[in-house]
């Protein structure tokens, strides 16, 4: 397990990130040339920065882990994470930029003129931010535990402390170039090892991902089980394992089937059988809705659009983001597939989220190349935790300091940062059992059932009233939040209730839209008087405005 290059790589990434955050502006912009100084951020840079902030631990580690575990069904995760920007591009990007709103609560105040609605939106921004922060810290704990052998809480605490201190002391103030750099770092950290892995796979004689007679261990492996499961051995025997059990397998021995994951070729390669049971289908639709519509409700993504000079630039930026994010999501899929061949033991331990960081050494051996690539991947993973957490923490601390603590001073912002950092840290230490991507999926579900209807109706329908918006957010978002809380804290469930709670978007999003429209129609008199002017501001082309 011990890779002596991992810790230096992680430390280097952290130091570089912190240093650029503090000194980057000074280095990049000491000039007396006004033409350079007043040049706005180009859509390409801005898009890379959005990508840098958006591609989180869930994308970097979680997607590959899910694909390793469940196969083709979960391809909707990367597809949805990328396609969310399509919905953002079509419905939200340009009008939101033209509105001049910086955060979602700002938009509420601007469109519906209600302070109470602003407060409600603030509560949801904070909840979504925290929910999204938890898996980042979880991923950090997992990565350090896997690569450096430290206990799980260490990684989570380290990242939480670094990010909180950095944001509180004024580094990482959404510096576009730092975030853009993070995107390219993450892409490199996945792409370069992926090329080596593909070559290795080629030279190994292209072993089948799903051999007809089941997967086998390529090397002698000792597995320490970390999650309770039932194994079905090759000879048909079943074996119940508990966390802490150690199993040894010889080279060439077939991999036992593990309960709760996709095992056989058909199970893994084909979509789950929709005919026998609608639950899988419902879950898939839920996932698609949540990821497609949830992206527009993520607080740290929306604030980035403010950097664009006008609506047209916002739209171009979104288009570039779509391309950049789309390219990135090809890579975790490759890791998930190759993980099936080189690291089947992860299915038994249950730590599938670690596949990205373990794969280079597993496939290329513990030689210098393998260790270097593993260190690179680990550095990329840490870049993912740091950039996403910083962006989220800045957003959450911003709304806490302005909307909860009152007009923000520097001290208020610091206090808010500490509050915003402590809560998800405590949560992350207690929910290590959940899949990273699933928690992120829940954050998307909450965003899709609260802010998506608000933004879409607020921008495209004159009839929305503050009462309607508040009711929709409370009912739809509230239902999603309840589902999340039950999933994270409540008892395990089975059957339809479990599906409805685990993937709530397919019923909470339509619910939120329906309530919002119905209550708005019932309270038609409360529609803001200056709606015509607001709509003109949102939709008139930029050229007409000056």
């Amino acid at each position: 397990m011990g890779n002596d290059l991992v810790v230096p790589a992680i430390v280097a990434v952290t130091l570089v990130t912190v240093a650029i955050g503090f000194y980057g502006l000074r280095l990049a912009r000491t000039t007396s040339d006004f033409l350079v100084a007043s040049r706005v951020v180009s859509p390409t840079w801005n898009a890379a920065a959005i990508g840098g902030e958006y591609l989180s631990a869930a994308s970097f580690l979680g997607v590959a882990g899910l694909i390793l575990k469940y196969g083709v069904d979960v391809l909707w995760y990367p597809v949805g994470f990328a396609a969310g920007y399509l919905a953002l591009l079509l419905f939200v990007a340009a009008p939101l930029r033209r509105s001049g709103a910086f955060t979602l609560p700002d938009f509420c105040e601007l469109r519906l003129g209600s302070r109470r609605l602003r407060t409600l939106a603030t509560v949801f921004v904070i909840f979504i931010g925290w929910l999204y922060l938890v898996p980042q810290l979880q991923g950090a704990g997992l990565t350090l535990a896997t690569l450096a052998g430290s206990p799980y809480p260490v990684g989570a605490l380290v990242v939480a402390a670094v990010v909180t201190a950095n944001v509180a002391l004024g580094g990482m103030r959404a510096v576009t170039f730092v975030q853009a750099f993070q995107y390219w770092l993450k892409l490199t950290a996945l792409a370069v090892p992926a090329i080596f892995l593909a070559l290795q796979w080629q030279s190994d004689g292209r072993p089948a991902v799903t051999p007809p007679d089941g997967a086998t261990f390529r090397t002698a492996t000792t597995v320490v089980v970390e999650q309770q499961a039932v194994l079905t051995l090759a000879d048909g025997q079943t074996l119940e394992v508990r966390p802490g059990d150690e199993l040894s397998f010889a080279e060439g021995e077939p991999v036992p089937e593990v309960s709760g994951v996709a095992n056989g070729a058909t199970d893994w390669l084909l979509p789950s059988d929709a005919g026998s049971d609608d639950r899988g289908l419902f879950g898939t639709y839920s996932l698609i809705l949540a990821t497609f519509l949830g992206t527009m409700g993520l607080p740290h993504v929306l604030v980035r659009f403010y950097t664009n000079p006008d609506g047209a630039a916002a739209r171009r930026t979104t288009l570039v983001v779509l391309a950049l994010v789309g390219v990135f999501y090809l890579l975790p899929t490759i890791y998930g597939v190759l993980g099936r061949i080189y690291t089947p033991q992860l299915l038994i331990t249950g730590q599938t989220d670690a596949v990205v960081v373990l794969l280079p050494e597993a496939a290329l051996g513990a030689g210098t190349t393998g260790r270097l690539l593993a260190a690179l991947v680990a550095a990329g993973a840490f870049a993912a935790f740091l950039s996403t957490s910083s962006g989220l923490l800045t957003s959450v601390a911003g709304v806490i300091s302005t909307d909860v603590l009152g007009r923000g001073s520097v001290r208020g912002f610091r206090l808010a940062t500490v509050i915003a950092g402590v809560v998800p840290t405590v949560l992350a230490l207690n929910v290590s059992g959940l899949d990273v991507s699933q928690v992120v999926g829940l954050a998307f579900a909450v965003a899709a059932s609260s802010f998506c209807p608000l933004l879409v109706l607020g921008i495209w329908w004159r009839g929305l009233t503050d009462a309607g918006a508040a009711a929709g957010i409370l009912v739809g978002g509230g239902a999603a939040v309840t589902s999340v809380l039950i999933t994270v804290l409540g008892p395990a469930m089975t059957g339809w209730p479990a599906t409805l709670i685990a993937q709530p978007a397919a019923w909470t999003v339509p619910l939120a839209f329906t309530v919002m429209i119905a209550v708005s129609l019932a309270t038609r008199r409360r529609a803001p008087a200056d709606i015509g002017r607001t709509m003109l501001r949102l939709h008139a082309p930029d050229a007409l405005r000056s």
Partner: protein
Amino acid sequence: MGGNISAVIGVFSLVSVLAGALFAVGRLRGRRGIATPGQRATYEVLHTAGLAAEPLRAGLNPAGAAKAARHLRTLVGAEGLALTDTDDLLALDGRGAHHRDQLRTAARRVIASERSTVLGEAELTCDRIDCPVRGAVVAPLGGASGRITGALVAVTDGAPAPGLVQATLETAHWAGSQLALAELDSSRERLARAEVRALRAQISPHFIYNALTAIGSFVRTDPERARELILEFAEFTRYSFRAHGEFTTLAEELRSIDRYLTIERARFGDRLQVRLQIAPEVLPVTLPFLCLQPLVENAVRHGLSRKPGTGMVSIEARDAGAECHITVEDDGVGMDPATLTAGIAELAGSTGDPGDDPGQHVGLSNVDERLRSVFGDGFGLVVETGVGSGTKVSMRVPKFHPGVRAGS
């Protein structure tokens, strides 16, 4: 069974007929006389209120408060009535003069807690045997935007009755709204004044004169440069004389400052050094039209005048979460902070006697006033200066503020 139902219907119809008759009688009576007791009461209350409103509309001052207190006392129906501002008792009408101190402390408490209170005999002890004062009701006076500007105290002979408490609260509420209107009037005046000053501050005649002279000196030696400078000057005046729009973006403002500095550099040559640190993220921030340029003009004037050698002007705009922090700094001779404060206070008064450097104060206080009126009192200019140590002017601009929009 059938009898029962018909009895119920009978009773019901009887009751509804009775109710209808009562209603009709009430309506008819309401229409008949010109001066019913109710109407008379309404007239009296409104008349007294009108009398009290007039002095209140001038704001809370001792003279106005003394006039208003008399009418307010009639309105509340108390034995004594006092008005206070946030720290002192302004006027007292009727009884309770020797309880002044107790009433003042009570009023301060009420203003601090923003909640009305009732004083009983225990809190109003005094050593005069014939003192009739037994209780008082203290209610806060709310000004514009919910800020508490003072308190109203009703003094009574008996224990304060619920009726008195209610009357006092309502009267305090009404008086508070009159004060808010007064504040509104004064802020409208301030706004008008700021606008006038903004027009005056937009472009300094000295600058036009100096710019044209500098350009003139190039016409023979370097016609190409002179041509460029004239174009820059034209663009600069076009922006500064722009008639529409109260707001602009930081990018636009910086572009205009660039033109200004180009012209100034033609005049000063290498004596003028400029250093810039602009975070590109904050370029789209919306801010009041021409609120940065006067600061740069000041810095240039300050950084170079009365000082040999080169002068450095640095402009910095940083991204700070939901805000943008802008500073303009020069390494000139600086000034005594006391002079600056005095200058601003004097100008805020009325005429503004042109001292040795009048544009300085006009520019700063004008920008300060406009920033405050747009974003709120927390967003004024911060000036750090001292004799011989340069000047640094900083401002905070929120990235979003309802009602602020570029190009409107």
